[in-house]
C-alpha cells in the first residue's frame, strides 16, 4: 500500500464520519451512512494535467473522485474541464471528505477555489472566464479588458507565496487573497509591487474591475 493511501485511510479512521477501505493501487472506497459509496483515486502528482485525469478515468471504471493528496497539488484547467464534463469530482483530500459526507463526490470541485471561481463567473462586469489552472483565471470584461488573476487561499499570504505563485504560473495582474478572513502581510504586498502585480481582497478586486 502506498504512502498516500495509508495517510488517507488513517485520516478517515481518525475522523470517523465515513469509513474507507483500500481497493488496490491508488484506489479507495469510502462509505458513509445514507450516502452513495465513493470510489476515489488518491494521487501524489504535483500537477494534474488532462493526460493524468484521462488516464485515471479510463483506467478506473466508476471513478467518482480524483484526489490530489499533496496540499500543493496543482490542477490544470484542461484537467478540470475534462473531469467536470465526465462527472468526476476533483480536488484536495479535504474536498473528498466533505463530498463523501454530502453525497456529491462525482460533481464536487476543489473546495478551496470553489467559491472564488463562482464569484468571478457570477460577477456582472465579467464577460468571460478562462480557468488556466485551479487558481489562475484570465477574465475578460464586457469592455474587452483582460486581467490574469492568481488566487492565494492562505490566511496570511506571505512574500514567498506571492513570488512562488509568479514563478510557477507566470505574470499575473492581480494576486487575490481568497480567504475571506485573510490578511495579506505587508511583505506580500511589497513582493507584488516588485514583481508588477497587486495583492488584494475581493472588495478591492471588485472595485478595480468596476472602474475599467
Amino acid at each position: 500500500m502506498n504512502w498516500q493511501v495509508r495517510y488517507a485511510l488513517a485520516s478517515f479512521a481518525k475522523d470517523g464520519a465515513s469509513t474507507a477501505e483500500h481497493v488496490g493501487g491508488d484506489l479507495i472506497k469510502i462509505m458513509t451512512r445514507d450516502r452513495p459509496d465513493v470510489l476515489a483515486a488518491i494521487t501524489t502528482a504535483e500537477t494534474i494535467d488532462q493526460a493524468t485525469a484521462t488516464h485515471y478515468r479510463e483506467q478506473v471504471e466508476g471513478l467518482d473522485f480524483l484526489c490530489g493528496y499533496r496540499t500543493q497539488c496543482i490542477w490544470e484547467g484542461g484537467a478540470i474541464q475534462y473531469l467536470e464534463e465526465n462527472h468526476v469530482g476533483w480536488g484536495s483530500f479535504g474536498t473528498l471528505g466533505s463530498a463523501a459526507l454530502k453525497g456529491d463526490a462525482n460533481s464536487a470541485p476543489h473546495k478551496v477555489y470553489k467559491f472564488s471561481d463562482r464569484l468571478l463567473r457570477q460577477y456582472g462586469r465579467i464577460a468571460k472566464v478562462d480557468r488556466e489552472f485551479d487558481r489562475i483565471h484570465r477574465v475578460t470584461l464586457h469592455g474587452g479588458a483582460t486581467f490574469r488573476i492568481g488566487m492565494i487561499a492562505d490566511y496570511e499570504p506571505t512574500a514567498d507565496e506571492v513570488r512562488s505563485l509568479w514563478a510557477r504560473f507566470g505574470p499575473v495582474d492581480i494576486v487575490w487573497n481568497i480567504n475571506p478572513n485573510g490578511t495579506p502581510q505587508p511583505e506580500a504586498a511589497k513582493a507584488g509591487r516588485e514583481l508588477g502585480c497587486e495583492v488584494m481582497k475581493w472588495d478591492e478586486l471588485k472595485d478595480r474591475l468596476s472602474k475599467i
Partner: protein
Amino acid sequence: MMASEIADHLMGTCASLKHFDAYMFGSTLHGVGQDIDILIVGPGGDLLAQLKKEIHCAGESLPLHTLYMQPSEERHTQFVAREKCIPLAQLASSGSWLSRTET
C-alpha cells in the same frame, strides 16, 4: 512515522536548514494528520531556493506542507506562538513524547 522521526529525517536530509529556524505545527504533533505542517523562518534568495529543493526531495514520500516566512512576517503574525510551533531541533532530540502517525 513519529513527529520526532519526521524532524530527524528533515534535519538529516536538508543541510540548508542550519540557516533557518524550522518548526512543526498542527495535527501531526498530536497524531495522525492529513499533512505535515512545517514552518520555515529565515532569509530569501539563493539560500531559500536551495532549501526548497532539499525539502522537495525530503518530502518525496511525505505529505509535507511547508510555509516559508521572512522573520518580519513571523513577528507581525506571531505565528510561532499562535500556532504553538515546536522547533524541529527540539522534536528531533525528544523522541517519545509525541504520538505515532502512520506513514
